[in-house]
Structure formats: C-alpha cells, structure tokens
C-alpha cells in the first residue's frame, strides 16, 4: 500500500476497530448521519512554524509587556490565573487557536455542552493545594475536612451510575467485566488490587507518597524509578497475572489515560494511574469530578479570570531569550490580521508542547536540551448527537459507557451530570490511536474525510446500539494530531524530561508533558509553578501554592 493511498472502508474499519470488520462491505456509507463537521487542530499553522521560512518574517509592531505566556491550554491559563491572584497584571497570553483551552476545550450546540477532550478530574488529595484553591474558588469544593480533605459539592461528583461495560450482547455495571469471571480471574484481580494498595500506602524516606498527583509531589526514589524501565505488560507478566479480564482492565485503563496499549506504557505510569488515586490501604479510588462539558468548565473559568490578557489566533513562531540588558522577544503570526506581531518582555512562560520548543526557541538545542524524547499520541473524538436514547439490554446508560470488544474507549454521556435521563443527548466518543501507528500513517489519516470518520464512529457504536442509525442527527469529529504526551517506558524518569521543567534563562516552561503524563492536575501544577518562579524572580511571590523540589 502506497503511503498516500487512501484506505478503503474495509481496511479503515479493520485497522481501527478490529478484524470483525474484515468482511464489511467496501463502500456502504448509506447509513451516515445527515450532518457533521470534521475539525483538525491547527496543524497547518503548526507546520508553518517548523519551516525555516519563519525566520524571514519579522514583526514591525512590538508590544512591551512584563511577561508573555505562549500557549493557552490549562497550563498557560493556570499561569495567568496565578499572576492575577498575585495582583500581577503585566502579562499577555498568546494562544494559537481561536479558543483557549487546548486539549481540555469543549463545545456547545443546540443547548448541549460536551467535551472535545479532557472530561474529568479525580477529587484532589489534601496535598494538591493549588488545585484545591482553584476548585474552591470555583465553588466546586465547598469545604475542607479537619484533615484537609476537600469536600466536593454533590452536583459535581460523577452521578451514579458511573460506568458500564458492554460485553457479549449486554451491558454490565462497572468497568471490570466481572460477568462469568473464574475463581482465578477474581484471585488475580484481588492480588492486583492488593499490590496497588501497597504502593498507595507506602512512603519513601522523605515521607512522600510513592505516587502522588501532581507527580512532582510523589517520590523519586529508586524503587519507583525502576518501574519506568519496564512496560506495564512486562510488569504484569513478571507477576504471572494473565487473567484476560484483568488484562483487559489494565489495557483499557492505559488506553484511556495515556492513549497507549500496556506493551508501550511505562509500568511507572501504569501503576501511577491506579495508585495515585488511592489515599491509602483499604480506600476506594478517589471519586471523580465532572461537568457536562468536561474540563471545559475549568477552561471557561480560567478564561474568565484571565480574560483581558488572552489573545487568540496568535501563532508564536519565535522566542528569543533576553539578557540582563535586553528583553526577551516573542514573535507571533496574527491569524486574525494575517500580520506578524512581536512582544518584548522580561520573562516568558512557554506553555506550548515541548515538541515545539526546538523549532520556536532560539538556541534551544544549542543549550544542550533535547525534546525528541517527548512523543505524542493522536486521538479521535466525536460528538454524536442523538434524538433519543438507544434501547439497551442490561444495565442502564451511565456516564462512561465502554464497549469491551472495541478498541475505542466507548462514550461519555454529556447530559449525565445534568440529571436528564430521557430524550436527546450527545455522546462523546473517544478513540486513541494506541496501537495503530504502524498500520495507518499520518498522511493517510489526513486524507480521510468527515464521512470516513463518521462511518468509523457509527460502526463502532452500532455494536452496542444496533438502533443508533435511527437516532443520530449529527456527528462532529475532531482529529487531535500529536495531542497527548506518551509515557513510553524509560521516558518519565529520563534526564530529558527531568531537565525540561527547569527554566532556560528568562524562559520558564509549563505543560502537562513536563510530567510525562497528560492530566489536568499536571498541566495546572506546571502553569502555577512557572508563574511562581517568575513572581519569585520579580520579588512579588507572596504565599507559594506549589513546592518546588530541589533534588
């Protein structure tokens, strides 16, 4: 197959969804929904930035501003929030897209709100001061217990029923496919849980949790670093855990949180996923906070705070660090006016993905840094509008609805948290390109049209909902190219990653990728941290919200 060749329907479905589709009719697209759109992240502008051409563009308009924040995802917005909180207003935030929020942004249509990416946060533990501050400000956290544990308002905790899984023609409660599990399956599940509990309970020599969120507050002891050398699959193998049900649970979890299958996820990240959310032995996993629009709610709140400082449609293509006597320079291409624009500031927060740094920051590679270790995975997200609920057999529709036999992650029901259980709703369907990188090239992906993707989405949903075609009114698809940092084995505890958070002169870095795992908490932490570093340099840091580890 030539690289640029377009995949036919059968190939596409087989590659993405599995061999059950090997016999699909070649070109049966008759069942497509009436309307929908396909959106890509602004990759063309991204590509423009990588080209040497950019060096030739020189802005002739310059604005002088204390700090320039590059990138308006959660990390950049968090930095803005922190500045405002400190009463520091001399900054600007430059965001490439028309909307800030990055991979946490959301959409709305016909009275529905729905996520386009990130959609939940586990209730933070007492140690996560910065996030507790934010969520309290948002009135999501109502109070703290004496022990400092946050108490979240009932309406923001994920409403029961939380999860269900479709398996062998029927929906079951929960995520673990317990139906028909053997004694051995259950024994292994118990052993697995015990092992996770053990990690959750353990403390290192400095009294830190082995796995904590943000990960910088957890241990960097050799015992956890060691895990990073293995894949999650090897880690399971070493323990002799071969129960297909347990394997499925771990596989699902890895794809859900990291967009990777367990053979490509660092065992550190695999254990982190489970252990960091458990307060200690015998505790359940932390409950999750969610909204109809997912983490878009946090984006909107932060946007409200930083409002007057946020400039959208600005593609930053060059950052040049200043010196003691000279200011730093940030050059952007304003896609609103199609003209370049420059900012001169004392400090810069670089809150765009690390992979951009070497193209954008002058002398980045020369400084001995290497961002090639930062690898990112692609995702497909679809918002499927339906005019009524599908007929179900078994457990009723939940917030998270997972199809066991599928390589997709299933869907989240947008109206779940509003308490509306009948009538029209929007299903947000997720698909990580976890193990298909080899089978489908980026170019082939880019060649696919809305109809191709809509067909993939509906073919997948049809397995659990044979009546879906009669209900769908609209399918919108978002292709997230290189959107999520991949915790491949060896990456999380690599010197490249550990070094990446350190400032490069006046340039301070933020972004979830600096943690090696993609989480709102990590992005938020780094944004706040970068802002506090700058506030400290400027001598105006009052009460730090995050601790900066010096080891």
């Amino acid at each position, binding site marked *: 197959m030539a690289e640029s060749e377009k995949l036919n329907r059968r190939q596409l479905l087989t590659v993405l969804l599995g061999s059950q589709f090997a016999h699909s009719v070649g070109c049966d697209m008759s069942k497509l929904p009436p309307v929908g759109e396909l959106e890509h992240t602004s990759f063309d502008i991204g590509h423009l930035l990588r080209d040497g051409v950019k060096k030739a563009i020189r802005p002739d308009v310059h604005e002088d501003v204390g700090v320039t924040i590059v990138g308006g995802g959660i990390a950049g917005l968090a930095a803005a929030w922190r500045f405002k909180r400190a009463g520091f207003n001399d900054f600007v935030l430059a965001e490439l897209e028309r909307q800030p929020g990055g991979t946490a942004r959301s959409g709305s249509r016909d009275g529905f709100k729905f996520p386009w990416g990130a959609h939940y946060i586990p209730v933070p533990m007492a140690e996560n001061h910065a996030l507790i501050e934010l969520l309290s400000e948002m009135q999501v956290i109502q109070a703290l217990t004496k022990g400092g544990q946050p108490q979240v308002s009932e*309406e923001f905790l994920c*409403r029961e*029923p939380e999860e269900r899984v479709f398996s062998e023609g029927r929906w079951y409660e929960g995520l673990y496919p317990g139906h028909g599990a053997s004694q051995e399956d259950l024994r292994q599940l118990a052993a697995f849980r015990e092992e996770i509990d053990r990690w959750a309970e353990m403390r290192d020599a400095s009294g830190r949790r082995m796995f904590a969120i943000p990960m910088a507050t957890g241990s960097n002891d050799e015992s956890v670093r060691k895990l990073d050398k293995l894949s999650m699959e090897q880690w399971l193998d070493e323990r002799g855990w071969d129960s297909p049900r347990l394997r499925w649970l771990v596989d699902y979890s890895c794809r859900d949180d990291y967009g990777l299958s367990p053979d490509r996820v660092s065992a550190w990240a695999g254990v982190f996923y489970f252990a960091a959310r458990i307060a200690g032995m015998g505790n359940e996993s932390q409950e999750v906070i969610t909204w109809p629009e997912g983490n878009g709610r946090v984006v909107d709140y932060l946007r409200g705070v930083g409002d007057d400082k946020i400039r959208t449609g600005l593609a930053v293509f060059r950052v040049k660090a200043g010196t003691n006597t000279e200011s730093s320079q940030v050059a952007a291409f304003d896609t609103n006016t199609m003209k370049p624009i420059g900012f001169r500031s004392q400090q810069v927060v670089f809150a765009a993905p690390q992979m951009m740094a070497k193209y954008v920051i002058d002398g980045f590679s020369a400084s001995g840094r290497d961002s090639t270790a930062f690898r990112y995975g692609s995702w497909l997200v679809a918002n499927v509008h339906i005019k009524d609920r599908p007929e179900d057999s078994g457990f*009723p529709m939940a917030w998270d609805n997972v199809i066991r036999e599928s390589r997709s992650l299933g869907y989240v029901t947008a109206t779940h948290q509003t308490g*509306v259980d*009948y009538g029209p709703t929007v299903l947000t369907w997720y698909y990580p390109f976890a193990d298909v990188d080899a089978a489908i090239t980026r170019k082939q992906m880019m060649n696919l049209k809305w109809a191709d993707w809509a067909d993939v989405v509906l073919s997948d949903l049809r397995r659990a909902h044979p009546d879906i075609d009669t209900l769908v009114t609209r399918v919108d698809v978002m292709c997230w190219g290189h959107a999520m940092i991949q915790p491949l084995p060896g990456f999380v505890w690599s010197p490249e990653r550990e070094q990446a958070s350190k400032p490069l002169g006046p340039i301070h870095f933020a972004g979830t990728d600096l943690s090696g795992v993609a989480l709102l908490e990590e992005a938020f932490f780094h944004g706040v941290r970068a802002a506090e570093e700058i506030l400290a340099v400027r001598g105006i840091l009052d009460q730090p919200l995050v601790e900066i580890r010096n080891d």
Partner: protein
Amino acid sequence: MLNRAPLFLLYLNVLAVATCGLIYELIAGTLASYLLGDSVTQFSLVIGVYLSALGVGAWFSQYLHQGLARTFIEVELALALVGGLSAPLLFVSFAFVQWFQLVLFGTVFVIGTLVGLELPLLMRILKEHLDFSDLVSRVLTFDYIGALLASLLFPVLLVPYLGLMRTSLVFGVLNALVGLWGTYLLRPLLTKRGLAGLRGRAFLVVGLLVVGIIKADTLTTWTEEIILGKAVVHAKQTRFQRIVVTNNRQGFQLYLNGHLQFNSVDEYRYHEALVHPAMMAAGTPKRVLVLGGGDGLAVREILKHDGVESVTLVDIDPGMTEIATQLPLVRDLNEDSLMDEKVTVINTDAFVWVGQEHEPFDAVVIDFPDPGSYSVGKLYTTFFYRRLRQIITADAVVSIQCTSPLVAGQSYWCILRTMEEAGFNVRPYCTAVPTFGVWGFALASPQGDLVVPMQLGKLEQELSFLNDSMLANLFELPRDIQPIETEINQLNNQVLVRYYDEEWRGRE
C-alpha cells in the same frame, strides 16, 4: 363431479373445522377463568353451554333443506367472525360492560350453535356423493382427531406463544379459509348467482381477521394479563414507562412498568394518609406542589382543602397525565381533579424542574414511584431535597411516600435520613393499605419545630379513611418499625437504589 376432489381434502376440512370449534371453546373457558377467577366453575359452565349449543345447532340443521353448500359456507364465515373475534370481544366487554357474563355465555352459545350446524351440514352435503357408513365413521374420526389436536396445541403452543388474543384471531382466519376454500371445493353445488358475493365476503372476513392479528399489539398486553391475572383495560408504552390499567371484580389497578401504583379499592387510604397530614401541618397552604402523582389522586385530596389557591403538578410523563384526564375510569376516581382551574400540570423531569426558579410553595406532596432505578433514585437524593428547599417557604411542610418500612426498612430510613441531611426536620409515619401492605410516609419541614397535626376539623366528613384518632395514630410507630442506621443517598452513591433492590428483590 364432486368426486373428483381428492377425498383427503374434504377430511382436512373436517379436521380444521373441528379444531377451530374446540379452540374457541377453550379460549372462552380460559378467558372466563382469567377474568372471573374460579376456573372450575367457569370451565364447567362454558363446557355446559357449549355442548348444549352444539345440540341446538345439530337439531336446527334439520330445518335446512335448500342450498346446503351455500349455508355451510355462510356458517363457516359466521363462525370465523364470531370465533375469531371472541377473545378481543370478551376482553373489551369485560372492561366496559357490566353484564359481562351475558356476553360471555352468549358468545359461547352462538359459537356452539354454529359448530353444531357444521358437521350435520357437511355430512348431508357429502352423503349424496359418498357411501354413508364410510362417511360417518371417517368424518367422526377426523372430528375427534381435530379435538385432540386442539386440546394438545392449546396449552402447549398456542397460549404460551400466541396468547389468547392471537390464537382466537388465527383460528378465525383458518375457519374463514375453510369457507373460502369451500367456494371452490363445493363449486359444483353452488349456484352461480351470488357466488362472487360469497367469495367477496369470505375474503373480507379473512382480511378483517388478518388486520386484527397485525394491528392488535396483543402479545405484550397478553403477557401482562397473564402476569397480572387481570384484564387489561388500557395499555400504553410511553417514552418513560409502560402504563397498564387493569380491571377485576373488586376494582381497577394502575401499573407503571409492572409495579402497582394504586388499586381503586383502597387507594383512598394511601392518598388520604399521604396528603392530609402535610396539609394540616402546613396550616392553610395556598400554593401547593405535587411531584409525581400524575394520576391526579393526590390532587383530588388537596382540593378538599379550602384555602388552596393553586396546585402545581410536575409529572415527567404526559402519557400518565393524559390517562388521568381522559380515561373515564381514572377520571371518575380522581374526580377530574387535574381539570380543576386551580391546577397546573407540567410534564417535565422534576429533577430539572426543582432546579429552576419558582415562587415558593407552602406545601409539597411527593408521590414518586419507588426508587427502583437510578433515574428515579436521583429524585431521593440530598441534592434533590436541597434544591427543593430553595423553592419552598421557611415553614412549608412536605409529605413523601417512601415505600414499605416493613419490607424495605433500610430504604425507608435511608429516605428519611437523607431528608434530614438536606436540612429537613423529619417525622416518620405509616399506615396499612391492604393491596400494598404496611406503607411508609414522612412529614418534613425546614422549620425547627414540626408539629404533628391532631385534628382534621370539618375536613373529616369528606374523608373515607382518616379521622382524628386515626390521624394521631399514623405517627405512632409499631415495635417492628423503628429507626435504623443507614447511609445517606447522594447522586454519586445512589445507595437507596441498592438498598431497594436488595430488599424488594423477589418480593413482588
């Protein structure tokens, strides 16, 4: 000429006719025992009437001389119509007619008479063409085989798979086909005049019955009837639930998704206990809110209080409130309460509705179905009760039905504890509703000192159950209904649905 027709075809005819006859009889017998109970009596009576009618038919056949073949076909078609429609007919009449037994035995008699006519007619038609002794023995043999077939098919295949309604229609079609076929088989014996008309009628009957089979959504209705053991008067699948109204000797019943909501026989006990304590405790409430209760029965009780200026009823299902305003049975029972000018009906999910802004209410009656699913369980959470608090006055009184404290103690006390957690002062009470058993309610108010009402005053004359001593009695808990510790029901745990499921499973 008739000799040319293969003989076995004629015998097949006999077989079909005999099977149909017995099936009709069995349907009538089964139906009578379903609807009226006491199957021994019903079956004996039906068999008695049927057999005597057979005799009447046979006796009557001697007076028929001319156009035997034609009469035979006419009889087949009449039988197809009466027999085929017997089950639907009996059902409908049971629901709407006082003298049901008259219809029942009348139908059985007509069917019996027609079946009684059939065989003698057929034998007389054939006797001119066949050896008589041969004929009698063959015809009778096939008649008995038909009877055997019917009595085997009926319980083993027909009732379980087709249900009574479909069985009756299907055999009606078979019967009509025999008639239609007769117009070809007996063609040499029929005059040309009117033949087309006869065939036309035969086609019409077949068509009618086939439409009956397709149209009547009987299968589901049937399952319900068998489960409920009562006649289904009205059944409707709405977007939210399946609503079924049944009828038996004592009264009529309304089921939501197979769960009994009320029985007309003793619903007054339930509704008086649900409504009046809260209304009395609230003083003279002007603005009253009813959540759930789309049957209009709670509203009927509320309207007995003079001071009431407006009643707002929020029920998710327009299908339910339509029944309450349109089905005569229910309208009689709720005394057209939902049509009262003080009453406003809103069809929306109460969960969403309580989150909106409303002028505060002075009294609230909560009459949701039991918390058997998550989508109902959310209406019993701290979150819901907190929102409710926002739309009532500081001294409003709320009453709520909360399942049976005897069967489902954890569920009952969980509801009360959840209301307390949401800032309500709560008082448990219960009473006996024969068709439900011991039923639990609670009185709740944001006010600190919720005084239990002791006097009904002039209202008492309008009631069928409560009097002053009974009113006070409601709040005296027996020894087997005492508070127990439970968790609090929240949106993110929905413990109540779990309690309820454990406590009621296998008990209904």
